[in-house]
């Protein structure tokens, strides 16, 4: 393995921690980023959103999935991107205009119900933890690949670094750090990929990725609907639904939209995000395909998630291979650090205001936030150690499924449908979140299942999302007397352009 990898990882970690701590001092003096937000341009903000969003699953997991299962897995990066399109069409501008900082804030502002707020808090924590697990797994995998240490070492060490960093206050709302991470990640994945492609084209008689002699799945890998298990069409559509609709419900995604000055800027930002994500996601495919040519042994070892890390060294060799090996290791760590920090800050935020704050009576003090960060960091670490055998993107896919079954209906109906009531919304959250949550628990912790039960539980969105929408609509229609009295004013605030200053 590349001798540059460990120094590169240490470097990127130290830089992140130092900039985070330095930025915290600044942000404390300027009353946090509420003030900074008015000067954040859509382009900088979009880099920050993309930097926070591109996780270990995007950087390592997507290439691994493509290497194993082929073309069907391209739906993951396409869905991760198109999720922002759904967000743009239905949520971005009205959500910014609502002034909500978190999903529980939105629930309470729209429905005037502390019960729905509490439910929303619960699901923010659940989804945040679920999404943190693969980040920690990715850290373990990276350190194992680079140093040979057991996988729990990486998860524990890096989980501790991010938790302490968050508890001390680093990384909070530092738009600049997250924007920087996007460009680190893009450079780290794109530059080696282009060199790898060029080298591959210039070597005569190079085998095609599909016809790797060591593998027997040949053309199957090239063809759609072959890498999705027993019921490919169902799984395909369920995956599409989960990723297209789940993005808007991820806790760390929403917070960033608050840094837009107004609804119009929120739209422009989302447009730029779609461009930045689209560029990034062109490259994992290159690693997945060339991995079959140069490092097919990963498939036999069940270690395909490491393909991005080992491919440059294996394919190029010598000093270039080692340099690029160090670069991708640094990029993987940037991915892990930025997403995990963003998630941890979001989860700690809602935990400290809605849980610890209520107990201690001090509405989300710094001490509450620190305690919340400890809890928020330790739980997913335990889960990560338990769920070691699942692929990175599988767990991320499950988090998307829960988000799509809870917050997608809440946001879409809350923004576009006047007649939504607290009872309807609460029932939809409970049923949609409960069903998808149970499916996740069985998939992650239970015995392996086959046939339809296994398919339905491993990729639940196709049935849990419609059920959640239906329960919210029917529950609301049955309780029309509870429509919040100020819904008309809320609708004006959500949809009227800010420059008219119509908000009452």
């Amino acid at each position: 393995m590349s001798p540059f990898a460990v120094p590169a990882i240490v470097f990127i970690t130290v830089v992140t921690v130092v900039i985070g701590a330095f930025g915290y001092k600044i942000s404390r003096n300027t009353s946090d980023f509420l003030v900074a937000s008015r000067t954040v341009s859509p382009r900088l903000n979009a880099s920050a959103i993309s930097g926070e969003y591109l996780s270990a699953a995007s950087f390592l997991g997507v290439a691994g999935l493509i290497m194993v299962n082929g073309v069907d897995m391209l739906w993951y990066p396409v869905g991760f991107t198109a999720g922002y399109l759904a967000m743009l069409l239905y949520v971005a501008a009205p959500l910014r205009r609502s002034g909500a900082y978190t999903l529980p804030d939105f629930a309470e502002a729209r429905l005037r119900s502390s019960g729905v707020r509490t439910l929303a808090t619960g699901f923010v924590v659940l989804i945040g933890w679920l999404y943190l697990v693969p980040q920690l797994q990715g850290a373990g995998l990276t350190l194992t690949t680079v140093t040979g240490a057991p996988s729990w070492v990486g998860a524990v060490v890096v989980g501790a670094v991010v938790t302490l960093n968050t508890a001390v206050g680093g990384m909070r709302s530092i738009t600049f750090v997250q924007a920087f991470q996007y460009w680190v990640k893009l450079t780290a994945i794109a530059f080696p990929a282009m060199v790898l492609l060029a080298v591959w084209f210039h070597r005569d008689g190079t085998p095609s990725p599909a016809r790797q002699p060591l593998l027997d799945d040949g053309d199957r890998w090239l063809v759609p609907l072959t890498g999705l298990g027993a019921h490919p069409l169902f799984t395909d559509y369920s995956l599409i639904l989960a990723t297209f609709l789940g993005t808007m419900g991820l806790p760390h995604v929403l917070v960033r939209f608050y840094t837009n000055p107004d609804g119009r800027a929120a739209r422009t930002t989302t447009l730029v995000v779609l461009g930045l994500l689209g560029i990034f996601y062109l490259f994992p495919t290159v690693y997945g395909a060339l991995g079959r040519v140069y490092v097919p042994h990963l498939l036999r070892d069940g270690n395909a998630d490491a393909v991005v890390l080992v491919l440059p060294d294996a394919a190029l060799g010598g000093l270039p291979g080692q340099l690029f090996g160090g670069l991708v290791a640094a990029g993987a760590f940037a991915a892990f650090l930025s997403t995990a920090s963003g998630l941890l800050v979001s989860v700690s935020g809602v935990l400290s205001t809605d849980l610890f704050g209520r107990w201690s009576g001090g509405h989300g003090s710094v001490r509450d936030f620190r305690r919340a960060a400890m809890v928020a960091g330790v739980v997913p670490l335990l889960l990560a150690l338990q769920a070691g055998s699942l692929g990175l993107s599988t767990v991320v896919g499950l988090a998307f499924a829960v988000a799509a079954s809870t917050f997608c209906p809440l946001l879409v109906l809350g923004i576009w449908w006047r007649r939504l009531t607290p009872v309807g919304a609460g029932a939809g959250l409970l049923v949609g979140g409960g069903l998808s949550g149970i499916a996740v628990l069985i998939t992650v912790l239970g015995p392996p299942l086959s046939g339809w039960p296994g398919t339905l539980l491993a990729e639940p969105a196709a049935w849990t999302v419609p059920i959640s929408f239906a329960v919210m609509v029917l529950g609301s229609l049955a309780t029309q007397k509870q429509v919040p009295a100020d819904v008309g004013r809320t609708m004006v605030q959500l949809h009227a352009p800010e420059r008219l200053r119509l908000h009452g």
Partner: protein
Amino acid sequence: MAARDGTLGAMDTEPPPRVKVVLADGTRRPRPDAAAREIEEQTPVGEVLVTGLIRTQLALAVRLSLVVAALFGIQPVLFALAPGLAHVSVGGLPLPWLLLGILAYPAVLVIAWVYVRAAQRNERHFAELVSRE
């Protein structure tokens, strides 16, 4: 629906907020404005204006979602019904890889760009309507 919600608004116990319209154009002085007041006070006329904007924006989002469904949602069924398509090669790349690996991203970007332009135009029309009446 507008009338019903108008009644709800009238039952609102909070005092009616002061009407104050500031147009984006900074050189003009803020002045009270009839249509804006209708919206602020949630009269039936104001309701019609806002409901109209919401309907227009929702229709736009739904139309573009149908485009997304046609471009993306159709692919699994298409390749299931016509497996031969998967072996069609375009520019050296198999068709499914070209569609999802490369073309999907510019397609999403173009749809988003169309949306942003149209949504912004809808809001401009709404603003003109409100400030003209």
